[in-house]
């Protein structure tokens, strides 16, 4: 499973970024290979408009199976992501990536 997190930092202890569009980083974790990759979303953060769809496009390119985020994508971005057949879990803010991942494994996150 490839899991992408919206993250405010670059390691497992970083907090989930509640923002979808203007998230500071995207973190991609591949459960099969244990590969941990950080994608700087600073360019999108600095965009004047369309941050949600721009981040959705970034995620599209990563082709994850699961997205773990905070408040969740807005309507337009959610529509764009639907085509990915990805499971989306929300309200994981106030958790670190590590905590969110454990909760995901226990099936304790809220699905969108």
């Amino acid at each position, binding site marked *: 499973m490839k899991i992408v997190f919206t993250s405010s930092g670059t390691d497992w202890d970083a907090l989930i970024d*509640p*923002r979808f569009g*203007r998230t500071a980083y995207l973190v991609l974790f591949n459960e099969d290979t244990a590969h941990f990759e950080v994608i700087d979303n600073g360019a999108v*953060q600095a965009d*004047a408009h369309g941050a949600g769809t721009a981040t959705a496009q970034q995620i599209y390119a990563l082709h994850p199976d699961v997205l773990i985020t*905070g*408040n969740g994508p807005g309507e337009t971005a959610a529509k764009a992501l639907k085509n990915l057949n990805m499971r989306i879990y929300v309200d994981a803010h106030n958790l670190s990536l590590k905590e969110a991942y454990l909760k995901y494994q226990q099936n304790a996150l809220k699905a969108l």
Partner: protein
Amino acid sequence: MHEVVVLSGKGGTGKTSVTASFSVLAAGNTIIADCDVDAANMHLLMDPKTQQQEAFYSGELAELDLASCISCGKCKESCHIDAISVIKDTYRINAFRCEGCGYCALICPTEAISMKARRSGDFFLSIARTGDPMAHARLDPGADNSGKLVAKVKTEAKKLAERYQRDFILVDGAPGIGCPVVSSLAGANYVALVTEPSASGLHDLKRLVEVLQKFRLKAGCIINKADLQPEQAEQIKAYCNEKNIDLLGSLPYDPAFTEAMIQGKTVVETSAALKQKISRIWETIQYKINSL
């Protein structure tokens, strides 16, 4: 740390008066964030002393270097929003009209036009008169993109809450349901809705509740000026019950609000009766947050 966002839908319901009152009641344990950056006014009540100020840039603006301009007129022709004018053979770019698309810069044969980051306002880190840190901002007239500036205010407020070990971030949001409002909701733990008993008060409240539900946010409602139209107030209560919105309390119409405002104060500092009512509402909000 708990983030309480105060919103109203309709403007003029008393949102800022209520937020400022909460920040006086929570003094010593809160960070204040004014996210109504289009028409920031929390500073009028909190008298912040600015510690740090930085320019906020968003989007781009075309800039014309007259020394390289050959007055060929191609830029003016290509500008679909009519942002380029000619006065006595001199070409000018109207910064209020320019939307930063960059077309003129692309086609200018002498490369006299370049795209520059657009200064859209200012961001401030201050200490309010209550002694609490305050993050606020001011968007320039006609400037674009309040949502991005709101994101900046919120990020900085969160950092302040960590640095100063505060339990609360009190966010004064913008009216309406647009970009700055959605941006002010990110990461919110609880939303306090300040409304008034009028047809537009209820109508705008409903629109806002729709937005809140998309983000699954827990909210409570304060009916301000409730005694002006008791029947409308009852309708608001019924609507809140139906939508599972906590009823946090009602406030009467009271000239004390305006009088306090003129003195640059909050009603909890000038009226014992209102202090009692607003304290009770603030306690209810804390109770609701703790039982989430």
